[in-house]
């Protein structure tokens, strides 16, 4: 059997496309082996890491995993907790005991006093059961209820790009806008700060989402933010 690599790094592949031939290669995430061929199982970008070939998705719904940090919206209030919409196909629950460190007597307190329907929370997934029930916690910092600010939803597959290598992209956004930014793995982003700057960050994030699969994005976003910041300053100077 001839060992043959049929694709290059960062190539766009479609489901079922043959990526490599030969037993020397190994299928990574979103790739599978059929006899001696390695095939892609999703539309995405090829990532070759030594002998392992995997595919990075370009689109797709969020699927919850343990320890994911998410932003969710309270959907319903139950006897001893809340039902939270975390924008995935499965329901998520937040128990009273996991919501706060204080002791709460559920017989005496009205749960809506803490979290009401429609409010957003920043929480962590502590468990995804085998039957796909999701359990959340917001006991420790920085998990909390989200007040004020702007919430936007982007595709969850673009989140790693929004965060950047060791947080480079999100840190740049934070520094140049002075806004607080929280990112949920499920694709929700919370931005809080000066309303004008919030809008600037929203524009930058939608640009990141659109161009996530292209290279040199950090620099382009940098010039974009620099340009907008500069414009604002000169406008204000001429006013005064």
């Amino acid at each position: 059997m001839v060992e043959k690599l049929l694709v290059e790094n960062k190539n766009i592949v479609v489901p079922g496309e043959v990526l490599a031939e030969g037993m020397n290669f190994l299928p990574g995430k979103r790739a599978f082996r059929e006899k001696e061929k390695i095939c892609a199982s999703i539309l995405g970008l090829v990532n070759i890491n030594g002998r392992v070939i995997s595919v990075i998705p370009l689109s797709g719904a969020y699927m919850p995993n343990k320890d994911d940090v998410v932003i969710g919206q309270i959907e319903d209030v139950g006897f001893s907790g809340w039902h939270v919409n975390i924008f995935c196909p499965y329901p998520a629950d937040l128990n009273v005991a996991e919501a706060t460190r204080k002791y709460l007597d559920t017989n005496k307190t009205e749960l809506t006093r803490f979290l009401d329907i429609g409010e957003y929370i920043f929480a962590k997934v502590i468990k995804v059961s085998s039957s796909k029930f999701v359990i959340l916690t917001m006991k420790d910092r920085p998990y909390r209820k989200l007040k004020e600010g702007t919430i936007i939803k982007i595709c969850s597959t673009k989140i790693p790009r929004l965060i950047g290598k060791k947080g480079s992209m999100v840190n740049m956004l934070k520094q140049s806008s002075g806004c607080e930014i929280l990112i949920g793995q499920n694709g929700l982003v919370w931005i809080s700060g000066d309303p004008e700057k919030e809008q600037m960050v929203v524009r930058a994030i939608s640009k990141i989402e659109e161009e996530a699969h292209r290279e040199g994005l950090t620099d382009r976003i940098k010039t974009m933010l620099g340009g907008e910041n500069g414009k604002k300053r000169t406008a204000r100077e001429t006013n005064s």
Partner: protein
Amino acid sequence: MVKKGQPEKLIVKGKRLDGRGFDQMRDVSIKAGVIPEAEGSAELSLGETKVIAAVYGPREVIPKHLANPEKGIIKCVYTMASFATPDRNRPGPSRRSVEISKVMAEALTPVVNLEKYPKTSIDVFVEVTNANAGTRTAAINAASVALADAGIEMNDLVTSIAGGKADGQLILDLFNPEDNYGEADLPIAYLPRTGEVSLLQMDGELTPAEIEKLLKMIKKACEELYKKQKNALRERYKLK
């Protein structure tokens, strides 16, 4: 008996009424990602037949009792716009559209890795905006591109085209007069990587030898369709 509007001959001087050769498909154009609200979508035209496919999900199954705890389900809805045919056709479900929805779901199911999406449903909607024979094959082609565009894990794409017989001659990709007055119609869905057939219906009469011949013709055409589908998906994320 000659029906009203029936052409005298379907094949004139070795050519079909629209000037095509016997094993020639109509022009195909596919565009992925046409509906921003949907997870995945595609627009396809096969000659004068035009369809739009949208994929939503994986999402919660409604009604809940249909959910399978071990794997996801695919729901297809095929509809035809009231203006898609020369005479107005009554909108809403009909015997024909229910049948096509069912066979479409069955043609698409073998390629989707449903065990990755337990307790969810993947909803595929296809609207025929102009009908000129071959709507079910066009619908399957478009739905397969839309599924891939939605970032759903699949082990192949599905291609589909019809073969048939008119004036005693085996032909590929029937258009309206051939469909209405020809001797046979044989729509097939074909999985290009594995060479499996996931849909085979037949209307009219064909001998086993004729079916064999048609299958060969269809396979060749499907390979071409597969290339167009791949291109459409790559085009969506191409570097601008």
